[in-house]
């Protein structure tokens, strides 16, 4: 601790250079904090306790292939199955084709599968009684100022309705909230419509569903139940693949993009650049201070002490910028989420990201400081004082 002022003073010897380097480190760790938060949030998708009790069944061939609705009754007979619901992708756009909203055509019991979300009993009843009724997520309702009773025009990017147009009109009959006030659920940003209305109104996929969601009695029996469900359609023209919600989510995300790989690739490039930049700064800083380091050695600082001082300076530089960057990410993430009404979900920087981040800061600090520190350690006092 008694050397702290020495390290701090050395760090600010060239204020402009240090500030520019700090800004680069801050930007790198801000990006890391936000991207790693997204990666963690994707990796944890479907890992909830309720998610462990749910299975998803889709076509074995492709997720765009549909399955017969008649399968529901047979699936309900499988031992260990508590309830079966189904859904179809609708793909609604509101006002602008680019303004896509997760919209599913679902069976009447679909909401029962998700205890994480809640709809008031009156609104639930209204949904059951209104053919064109939809339940909208509260985050969406807040964003677009929708309220119960409003007409909701949506454009499907795939399915035409009975008159051949892709413009559909719905009635908002209820709002989907998270069961726990501080929780965030995907359905809060989505719309649920009646599968029956969808099935009757569009000329395609009559009597067919996109996927089934099954609730099991015992999560530890999930594998057995999944195999039994898939056995129902074995050797048919609609063979199925059943997996846990977590596995299905992971596969779905992977079909869109390998988020982990993308994050690691981007951060790899960013940190590599940071290594070069900070390494150059440290090398310059030590080169400029050759005579000062020689004076430290002259008055009795050992070579190892000088090595330690330069390494500490390098680690302090990266830690300072890194902690500021991650701190900013921790503040900006929730602000961004709140600012978009939850539509852009930037989770707060989780503890695991902080741990990885601090480990990275230490590693980068040591790595970029190592060469200049070795140079300082090996400094020959006589040569350095003579300017050689």
């Amino acid at each position, binding site marked *: 601790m*008694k*050397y702290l*002022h*020495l390290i701090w*003073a*050395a760090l*600010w*010897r060239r204020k402009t250079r240090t500030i520019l380097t700090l800004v680069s480190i801050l930007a790198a760790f801000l990006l890391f904090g936000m991207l790693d938060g997204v990666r963690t949030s994707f990796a944890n998708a479907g890992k909830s306790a309720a998610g462990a009790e749910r299975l998803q069944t889709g076509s074995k061939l492709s997720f765009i292939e549909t399955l017969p609705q008649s399968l529901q009754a047979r699936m309900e007979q499988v031992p260990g199955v508590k309830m079966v619901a189904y859904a179809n992708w609708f793909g609604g756009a509101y006002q602008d084709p680019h303004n896509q909203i997760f919209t599913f055509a679902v069976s009447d019991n679909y909401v029962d599968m998700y205890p994480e979300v809640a709809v008031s009993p009156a609104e639930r009843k209204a949904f059951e009684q209104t053919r064109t009724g939809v339940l909208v997520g509260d985050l969406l309702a807040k964003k677009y100022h929708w309220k119960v009773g409003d007409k909701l025009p949506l454009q499907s990017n795939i399915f035409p309705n009975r008159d051949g147009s892709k413009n559909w009109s719905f009635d908002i009959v209820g709002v989907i909230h998270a069961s726990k006030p501080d929780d965030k659920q995907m359905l809060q940003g989505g719309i649920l419509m009646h599968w029956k209305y969808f099935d009757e109104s569009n000329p395609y996929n009559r009597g067919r569903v996109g996927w089934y969601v099954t609730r099991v009695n015992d999560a530890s029996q999930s594998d057995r139940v999944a195999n039994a469900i898939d056995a129902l359609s074995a050797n048919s023209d609609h063979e199925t693949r059943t997996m846990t919600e977590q596995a299905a989510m992971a596969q779905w995300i992977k079909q869109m993009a390998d988020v982990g790989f993308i994050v690691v690739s981007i951060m790899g490039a960013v940190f590599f650049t940071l290594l070069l930049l900070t390494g150059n700064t440290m090398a310059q800083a030590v080169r400029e201070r050759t*005579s*000062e380091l020689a*004076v*430290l*050695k*002259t*008055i*009795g*600082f*050992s*070579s*190892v002490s000088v090595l330690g001082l330069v390494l500490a300076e390098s680690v302090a530089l990266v830690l300072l910028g890194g902690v500021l960057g991650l701190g900013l990410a921790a503040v900006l993430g929730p602000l961004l989420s709140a600012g978009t009404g939850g539509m852009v979900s930037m989770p707060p920087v989780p503890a695991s990201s902080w741990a990885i981040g601090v480990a990275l800061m230490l590693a980068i600090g040591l790595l970029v400081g190592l060469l200049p520190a070795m140079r300082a350690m090996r400094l020959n*006092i*006589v040569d350095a*004082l*003579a300017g050689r």
Partner: protein
Amino acid sequence: MGNLIETRDLAKVYTRGKQKVEVLHHIDLDIAEGDFLALMGPSGSGKTTLLNLIGGLDTPSAGIISVGGQRIDQLGAGALAKWRAANVGFVFQFYNLMPMLSAQRNVELPLLLTRLSSAERRQRASIALQLVGLADRASHKPTELSGGQQQRVAIARAIVSDPTLLVCDEPTGDLDRQSAEDVLGLLRTLNREHGKTIVMVTHDPKAAEYANHTLHLDKGTLVEQAIA
């Protein structure tokens, strides 16, 4: 008073590429404790090399150096660093202060290597600054001080850990006449009133007049010993 410094058959050879340059040859030298010695000679005569060897900044190629009864030619780099911290104060021509630290913090530097508390370090540095007449400039950074003041801060740094020996390499080489006289007067006070043994390299005969003795070096050999 006995000898503080003794060198016997001291030699230093530098290797520059494939060339070997013998800078000092067979130096036998005794410096009494409490002495103030000036080393003079033309450029390249080996004055600074001899000073560096006496101060433990460099190691001899051959021969013996004993300071206060300790054979410093036999010490390894780590032990030599510890020895310097405890026994020697250094004053350089260009002051070599840390530009980002205040005068007070510069003077405290050698005390960081001791077990003294922060308050004790501060107190000792203040006393050293008072001794060199710069107590009122303690919070000033080197760039806010004149050359003479910077050299006095460097002297305060050299004496703050109360070393027996002060080695000064051209301490007035970068100063105007008045500042040089102030600095040399200060060194004489440290020698006469505080008993510091001082070895000073200088080109300036006027500076050498402040010393008790002057030794001349030429081509790596002692050529003359004069009593001032």
